[in-house]
């Protein structure tokens, strides 16, 4: 556990974040996924063209919510 704490203390991303996402994978050829993701909290839909893009879409949404509005997200 000490190892984990070590990484967390050094990591700027260590903030509690929450969000709900609905993911629909339309196609999984070429070693990746393509489809749509709905950010349920904000009702925003986006098309993603790779798993990496999906991860980055979700990550940046959570990052944006973690700035100053954690409590609101927690109660939603």
């Amino acid at each position, binding site marked *: 556990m000490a*190892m*984990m704490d070590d990484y967390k203390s050094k990591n700027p991303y260590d903030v509690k974040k929450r969000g709900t996402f609905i993911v629909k994978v339309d196609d999984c050829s*070429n070693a990746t996924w393509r489809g749509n993701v709905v950010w349920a909290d904000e009702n925003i839909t986006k098309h993603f063209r*790779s798993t*990496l*893009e999906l991860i980055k879409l979700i990550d940046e949404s959570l990052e944006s919510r973690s700035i100053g509005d954690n409590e609101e997200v927690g109660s939603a």
Partner: protein
Amino acid sequence: MGAAKQMLFARNLINICIDSVENVDYQGKIWHQYSDEPVCFESGVKLLVMMDELMDEWGFPQKGLEQRSLIGRGKKRHNRQKNDEMSIDKVQKTNGTRNIQNKKGKLGTYIVQVSFRQNATWQGHVVCVNCNEKKDFTSAMELIKIIEQDLGNVDEKAE
């Protein structure tokens, strides 16, 4: 005599050192040639995000598709420098280069060369240092699967 050590040579080499697997996720460090200090990651997601950010910073390899956004972040346009100098050249001149192929993770070490960033994902080669194998990947997910498979093999050997 053992097989020749597999190596990669590229300006955007990244050495992924996995030190622990906790909460069903990876923790470790990434090393690149332009810094003495590693970047720590505490999950597989952060590993991918940080690697992509590094390549964005270097502008190499160039992105084939612009990243989409759920938070209405304005599209970033690549501002070409007046003298056409690439960001990675500047970074190289400012920071110099270091050998990163000697860094080792406690559980696994993976030297990654991303050759292209097409179809919003990565294509390139990875050397699994523990088993001295070079593999190709055609997406970021495939890279993660290669790492997962290799770490699984390490676990089996340990048992």
